[in-house]
C-alpha cells in the first residue's frame, strides 16, 4: 500500500498521463479525419455507427473505421468467375472483383480461385472503386470454424 501511495504521485505516472493525453488528442484528430474523409469519399460506406437509443433520441456516433476501404474481412457468401460476395463482420455485403492479377493464397501457399469455398473466411486487399466494390489484389484465406464445418 505504501508503495502504491508513493508510485501514484510519482513522475513516472505524470509522464504516463502526458502520454495518454497526447494519444487522446492524436486519436481525436485521427477520428475526425476518418469520419470527415469517409463521408466525403465513401458516402454511406462508413458502416453503422455506435448508437445510443432511447425515448425521443437516437444518437449515432461514427465508429471510426471503414470496413470496405482498401481491404475487407468476412465470409464468402457466393462465388462467380469474376467476383465474389462477402459478408463482412458488421453484417454488410461486399462485392469483390476478381481479375487475372488477383493473387489467391491459403495457409499453405498460392492457389487458384477454385480453392475458394462458400463459408470460407477471407482477408481481401485491393483498391476500392466508386461503386462500393473492391478490385482484389490479394485474397488470403484464414482458418475459421465456419469453413471447417463446410469441408466436413
Amino acid at each position, binding site marked *: 500500500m505504501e508503495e502504491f*501511495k508513493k508510485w*501514484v*504521485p510519482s513522475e513516472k*505516472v*505524470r509522464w*504516463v*498521463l502526458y502520454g*495518454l*493525453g497526447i*494519444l*487522446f488528442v492524436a*486519436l*481525436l484528430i*485521427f*477520428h475526425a479525419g*476518418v469520419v470527415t474523409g469517409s463521408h466525403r469519399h465513401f458516402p454511406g460506406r462508413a458502416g453503422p455507427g*455506435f448508437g445510443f437509443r432511447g425515448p425521443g433520441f437516437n444518437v449515432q*456516433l*461514427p*465508429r*471510426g*473505421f*471503414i*470496413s470496405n*476501404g*482498401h*481491404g*475487407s*474481412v*468476412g465470409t464468402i457468401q457466393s462465388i462467380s468467375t469474376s467476383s465474389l460476395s462477402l459478408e*463482412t*463482420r*458488421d453484417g454488410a455485403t461486399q462485392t469483390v472483383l476478381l481479375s487475372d492479377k488477383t*493473387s489467391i*493464397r491459403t*495457409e499453405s501457399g498460392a492457389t487458384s480461385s477454385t480453392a475458394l469455398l462458400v463459408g470460407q473466411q477471407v*482477408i481481401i*486487399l*485491393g483498391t476500392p472503386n466508386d461503386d462500393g466494390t473492391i478490385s482484389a*489484389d*490479394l485474397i*488470403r484465406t*484464414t482458418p475459421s470454424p465456419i469453413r471447417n464445418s463446410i469441408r466436413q
Partner: protein
Amino acid sequence: MTSKRNMAFFTEVEPPEGLFKAVLARIALARRRAARIKLAALGTVILVSGAALVPAVSYAVQEFYTSGFYDYLSLFFSDSSVAFSHWQEISLSLAESLPSLAVLLLVGFAAAFLWSLRRAVRNAGAAFNPIRLA
C-alpha cells in the same frame, strides 16, 4: 484618522485568550473540509471511470475484431512475404480499420481514472490528517 483609531483599539483592547489558535484551527478545518469535498468528487470520477473501463475494454476488443484490424495485422505473422509485398494496402487497411472511437473511449477513461487517482492520493493527506496547531 481611521488608522489612529484602529491603533488605539488594538493597543487598548486585549484579544481573548486563545483567539489566535481558534482562528488557525478554523482555517485548518475549512481546508480539511474543502479537501474532503474534493476527495469525494475525485472518488466519484475514479468510480465512474473505473467502472467504465471494463465495458470500454470489451467494446474495443469487439471493434478490433469486427473491423478486421487483427486479421490485417496477423498477415505479418502468418504470411510475412505477402504482407511485405502488399505493405501499402495493408498499411492503408490497418489505418482504415483502426476503431478510433473505441480506442478513444478506452484512452479517455484510462486517463481520467489515472488522473483522478493521482489527485486523490495527493489530496488524501490533507483530507484525513488531524488538525495540528502550532
